[in-house]
């Protein structure tokens, strides 16, 4: 209960309730004033009409006739009082609840005790006698008060309702946010797969929640990528390092000999260089996957880039007994990281040169998509997904040079550019077709 008072919805409801109360009180005062004025005007008209009647009586029947009428009227005890006074101030007929004042025109006689307040119209007749017509003001006050009470009652009810609604809204908001809070705590405690619950109403809370979930997804991807790199380093760099250690230990156990020592040291450096190359490739992949490159993307002329790669690798392919044919669509550009894209294309070509068949085709199509196709032994369907992962090498490729990270880097580069790397069989079901799709609208 107390926590609801520190809720935003509750504060908003309380604020609006207070405003409503103040407004209704102001409205009430104004309403009373207006109602009282209108009713008194009505009363004045009624008093004036009665006085009008008495004056006609006087004009027709004289002072005596008027006195008789006044006497008869007073005896009826209606809401209107009337009094006729002689010129010296003595009452001649009728009477008021209070001592009749000497006045001309309208006035209010304030009441006291059980005597009511009166509205009085006084005037002097041609003979010097005075006529007073009065009415009780109590009903006017009562009616004005009754009208004036309406706004504060309605306002109070509205304020109470606002408080109630605010309380309900605060409770519901509290419930919805409690789900989000507990999910966020779960993530903080290490359960990176947790996501904030959506209500399905697609309101502003859901929109905020979706944004937060996207953020959590990004964090999870980064954490997984980082954990993956750590695991890879632990598992796959350990074996070359152990080989290196054995090599050095073995050499140390033998007597010193300049020729075999030199040979051993050279082998050690080669082994170490391979570790360093794998390490550099891993860091590159991690960088590409972290998405930090995206903020430095600039427009890359993909057609020129692929053309240059083809020019550099055509002789390399030829020396290795392959032919590299190209079909490059001109004028394709996209926002991207030029160095990463270049390395991705070169890795695909090198992959084909090192593991593929004699005919290699390099294509750049609109999309943009880069394809490298060869008619070599290909990759078995069940291993296609695995070779994209880090350090996975086919058994038959263990003797060829490479870190086992080439295609992993291509896949990371594709993802950094909003695309993907897919491996398929070449035309006729043989060979390998590697397709790198990029998303031109990634920026």
């Amino acid at each position, binding site marked *: 209960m107390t926590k609801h008072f520190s809720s935003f919805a509750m504060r908003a409801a309380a604020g609006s309730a207070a405003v409503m109360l103040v407004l209704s009180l102001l409205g009430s005062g104004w309403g009373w004033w207006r109602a009282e004025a209108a009713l008194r005007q009505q009363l004045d008209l009624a008093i004036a009409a009665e006085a009008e009647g008495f004056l006609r009586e006087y004009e027709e029947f004289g002072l005596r006739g008027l006195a008789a009428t006044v006497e008869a009227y007073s005896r009826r005890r209606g809401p209107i009082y009337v009094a006729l006074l002689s010129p010296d101030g003595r009452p001649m007929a009728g009477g008021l609840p209070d001592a009749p004042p000497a006045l001309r025109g309208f006035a209010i006689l304030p009441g006291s005790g059980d005597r009511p307040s009166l509205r009085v119209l006084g005037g002097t007749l041609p003979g010097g006698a005075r006529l007073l017509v009065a009415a009780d003001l109590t009903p006017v006050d009562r009616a004005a008060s009754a009208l004036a009470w309406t706004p504060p009652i309605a306002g109070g009810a509205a304020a109470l309702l606002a408080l109630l609604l605010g309380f309900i809204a605060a409770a519901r908001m509290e419930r919805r946010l409690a789900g989000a809070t507990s999910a966020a705590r779960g993530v903080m405690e290490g359960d990176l797969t947790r996501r904030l619950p959506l209500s399905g109403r697609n309101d502003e809370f859901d929109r905020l929640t979706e944004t937060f979930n996207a953020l959590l997804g990004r964090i999870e991807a980064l954490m997984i990528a980082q954990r993956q790199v750590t695991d890879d380093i632990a598992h796959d760099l350990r074996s070359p390092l152990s080989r290196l250690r054995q090599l050095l230990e073995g050499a140390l156990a033998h007597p010193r000999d300049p020729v075999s020592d030199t040979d051993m040291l050279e082998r050690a450096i080669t082994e170490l260089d391979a570790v*360093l*190359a794998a390490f*550099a*490739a891993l*860091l*590159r992949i991690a*960088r590409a996957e972290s998405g930090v490159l995206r903020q*430095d993307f600039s427009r890359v002329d993909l057609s020129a880039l692929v053309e240059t790669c083809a*020019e*550099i*690798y055509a*002789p*390399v392919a030829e*020396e*290795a007994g392959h032919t590299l044919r190209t079909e490059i669509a001109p004028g394709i550009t996209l926002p991207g990281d030029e*160095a990463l894209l*270049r*390395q991705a294309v*070169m890795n695909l070509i*090198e992959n084909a*040169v*090192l593991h593929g068949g004699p005919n290699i085709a390099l294509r750049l199509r609109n999309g943009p998509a880069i394809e490298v196709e060869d008619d070599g032994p290909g990759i078995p369907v069940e291993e296609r997904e695995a070779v994209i992962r880090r350090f996975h090498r086919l058994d038959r490729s263990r003797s060829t*040079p*490479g*870190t086992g990270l*080439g295609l992993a880097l291509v896949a990371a580069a594709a993802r950094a550019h909003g695309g993907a790397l897919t491996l398929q069989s070449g035309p006729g079901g043989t060979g390998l077709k590697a397709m790198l799709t990029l998303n031109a609208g990634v920026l």
Partner: protein
Amino acid sequence: MRILLIEDDESTAGYIAKGLREEGHVVDHANNGRDGLFLAMGEPFDVIVTDRMLPGPDGLSIIRALRLAQITTPVLVLTSLGEVEKRVEGLEAGADDYLAKPFAFAELRARIRALARRPSGPPAEQSVLSLADLRMDLLQRVAIRGARKLDLLPTEWRLLEYLMRHAGQVITRTMLLEKVWDFSFDPTTNVVDVHVSRLRRKLDLPGEPPMIRTVRGAGYALSTPDGVEEV
């Protein structure tokens, strides 16, 4: 040559200084950015080799300070951050070359030599390069050895131009990859060797004295056919 080495890691500094002294260079060593900058501003050096991350002002700040003071001594930046964008950042700050740790000493040696022999004027002013009976006309895009016109592909042309500009020096494979092809990574295939051997087949016909030498464990060098190496 007199070389200033700014490196805070004692072991790396000792390894580099020892190697360079064995080559016959005079090496001054500073183990922090402040001393390094002080030495670089006050004394004449042929080449400055600086680590990028240093206590005191870092390598890039030192280069900026030197360039502001109109000191044009060539600077080679060493870094463990071998990423390509870091290299671009370093070159933009005014560094002349960039080398990622760990490196082979041969690589450092080749790069220091290439820096020290840089022509003082901008290279674009030269329109004709020549070495012995080899001539490259950069404007006409014609290369001639003796009386024979060489028919070079664009890649071979860029490769020969780079070797000509650094005639007599040992150029490593990594240097060629970086400067000729703008590679920031080591390819698995022997890209450099293939292109060099193709160029060599066009440049050095059987019977002609060879100009492109393979330097074992280091790289290649283009030199006059009589084999006299300029050091």
